[in-house]
């Protein structure tokens, strides 16, 4: 029944993303909206499809409803397949007991049955936290050429930032000799991107061994990779060239959105040969009014713009009324910014209404990014300073 595959992908999408605060209150981090009409998970999913990988297991755990609905049958990514396609893998109760996913390695361990169905030579492990375009097939080619048990994609980061990442030290053939998690004195600038290709039979062996060790924290970075290194398994890095960004914090999420702007942009979404697919909603084209002014911004379907928009990314159905100003902001779907209101340096979640003549947020120079949660109503003339994080629970403290 199950067609043998050379390589399948396992996408770890169970994370909460607590540093995104109210944005992940009811949504898992991979389902957080990005770039006007995408969600974070669209990037690894589209990468898989663009790399010829047609079998993807998505491991979910935290607040899976929105994510599960979004993935659906996988149709937007051409992953509604008779043989393969996308499968959502949630924690389950088994005869021997029941368990949540305890760590990244444990999550894969609990789904070894899924992997075995396709009997893949190679297993690609991905996470749903990053914005990037990557052809995994090139990485797989390297993996095969090197005869590796494991290949880890790395990004060369500026040396002074290297201590923030998991750093891989290699020999001249890119063979990994040492792995250091956030080293104080980094020896190299090759930062792990959290993208692994394993030769499946080796991965299985180490997952089973790791599971048998009660002291292990069942994590790829902390346990599996160091154990394999200690045993002298052939492990290599694959140097990725291009844009890659972890969007785990509000600031990095804002920055990644801004990286879509500019001409040419730091991150280009207009390449028709490497499309990022997304689940489409039927909004009409957007309308630009007679008195509007738009500078260096991204605007998408369903928007109605009669005001000023500068250096901002607007999602589906955002309305900017006459005299309203949106600057240096990320506005999610169906937000209404009423006449004369001003929004600066903010992330505004969906369905929120900013009342007339309100002033929300401070200029970017203040370096105080404002976060406004979903479905809130700000009355006319509201005034909110920068740096606040407003959700349904605390909005009363901010409005009179």
């Amino acid at each position, binding site marked *: 029944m199950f067609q043998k595959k050379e390589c399948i992908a396992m996408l770890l999408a169970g994370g909460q993303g607590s540093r995104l605060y109210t944005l992940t209150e009811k949504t898992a981090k991979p389902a957080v909206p990005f770039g006007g009409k995408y969600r974070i998970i669209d990037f690894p999913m589209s990468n898989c499809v663009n790399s010829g990988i047609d079998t993807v297991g998505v491991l979910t755990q935290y607040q899976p409803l929105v994510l599960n609905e979004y993935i659906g049958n996988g149709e937007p990514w051409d992953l509604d397949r008779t043989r393969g396609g996308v499968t959502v893998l949630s924690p389950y109760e088994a005869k021997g007991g029941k368990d949540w996913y305890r760590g990244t390695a444990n999550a894969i361990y609990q789904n070894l049955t899924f992997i075995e169905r396709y009997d893949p030579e190679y297993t690609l492990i991905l996470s749903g936290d990053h914005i990037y375009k990557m052809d995994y097939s090139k990485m797989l080619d390297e993996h095969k050429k090197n005869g590796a048990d494991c290949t880890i994609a790395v990004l060369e980061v500026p040396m002074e930032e290297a201590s923030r990442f998991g750093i891989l030290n290699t020999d001249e053939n890119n063979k990994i000799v040492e792995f250091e998690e956030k080293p104080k004195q980094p020896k190299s600038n090759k930062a792990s991107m959290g993208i692994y290709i394993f030769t499946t039979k080796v991965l299985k062996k180490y997952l089973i061994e790791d599971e048998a060790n009660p002291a292990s924290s069942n994590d790829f970075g902390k346990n599996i990779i160091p154990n394999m290194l200690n045993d002298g398994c052939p492990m290599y890095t694959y140097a990725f060239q291009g844009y890659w960004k972890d969007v785990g914090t509000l600031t990095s999420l804002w920055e990644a959105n801004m990286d879509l702007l500019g001409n040419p942009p730091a991150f280009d979404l207009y390449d028709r040969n490497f499309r990022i697919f997304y689940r489409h909603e039927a909004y009409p084209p957007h309308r630009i*009014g007679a008195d509007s002014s*738009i*500078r260096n911004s991204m605007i998408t379907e369903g928007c109605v713009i009669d005001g000023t928009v500068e250096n901002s990314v607007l999602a589906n159905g955002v309305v900017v009324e006459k005299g309203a100003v949106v600057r240096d902001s990320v506005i999610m779907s169906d937000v209404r910014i009423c006449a004369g209101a001003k929004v600066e340096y903010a992330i505004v979640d969906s369905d929120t209404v900013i009342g007339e003549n309100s002033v929300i947020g401070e200029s970017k120079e203040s370096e105080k990014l404002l976060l406004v949660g979903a479905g809130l109503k700000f009355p006319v003339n509201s005034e909110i300073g920068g740096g606040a994080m407003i959700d349904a629970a605390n909005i009363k403290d901010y409005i009179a």
Partner: protein
Amino acid sequence: MSVTGIIFSNLHDNEISELTRVRTLASVPFGCRYRLIDFPLSNMVNSNISNINVITQYNYHSLMDHIGTGKDWDLARRSGGVKILPPYINFDGSTRNNLSNTRLEALKSVGYSIAQMTSDYVVMADCNVICNIDFNDVLNDHIESGADVTIAVKRMELDRATAKANTLVFSSKDGRITDLLPNPTNFDGYADVSLNIIVLNRKYLQDFVLDSIAHGYTSITRDVFLKSLYTRNFRIYRYDGYFACISSFEDYFACNMQLIENQEMFDSLFGVEERPIFTKVRNSAPAYYSEDSRVKNSLIADGCVIEGTVENSILFRGVRVGKGAVVKNSILFQDTIISDTASVAYTVCDKNVVIRNNVNISGHSTLPLYIDRGKMV
């Protein structure tokens, strides 16, 4: 109650021959990101009609490409879904189903499919009518009144030119149709205009299609409906919402432009929350407006990159407007490129047109210019 939909994709091709040289009327682009067939197709889907036949005759490559499996309209179904009915040659090489010019000829050409229908009712629609209508209202009216045929109409003031482009429907006070006047040449004033949306009892449709094949009839209005007005129950359904009938290139241009000027029209087509208009998904990125862009009074689709000036225009998906380029009162189809120092006004650029540097092109508000698909100027 089960309902089958029939959409005629080619009927009015001749009326805008510029745009239908390489495509059916059904697949003529409209309204920034749609094709004309999206309106009847979405109306049917939004009225829970999920068994739809699209009758086509020629030039249907773009139509088939657009509809695909039908999944963008939720019509990729095990039971029903959307089916394209093209003409075919019989096993002996004969073309019994000759290419048709009229609605009745089109129906006769797919007589086999019609004979197989089992639904209670059939809804027929053309692709030259743009509206957002709930067919359930028409169907309920049809069932309650016990009609054999119900024609949706709208009361309008007509001049001679618009009257000639439409079928006028005359009815008694209780809504029973007394006369039908297709394409009158000497009418002006108020009249009920047919939306070319017709609800029929399936059995009656099957009967008259067979009868028409036997008699060699060619016109549904003249040969079938007019002859049966007093033996069958023909009724009107009054529609109050916005509707546009596209019967010439000038109409087409004006109707697109109305989407910009007339907010009410835009909202009545696209602002009905439970009845969105669906179209083929292209997975474009959002539109990008550069630091130098100046855009006023326009409708812009996703995938556009705008660095120049755009006023009173409609830009389809993936259009590029270079730095310093000026686009006014124009309609630019998918993937048109306007180079940095070019300008266009009162022009319709078909797909993949390239306007190169220092080229200035202008039609007139009364006679918009048309540039053919893929041309480089």
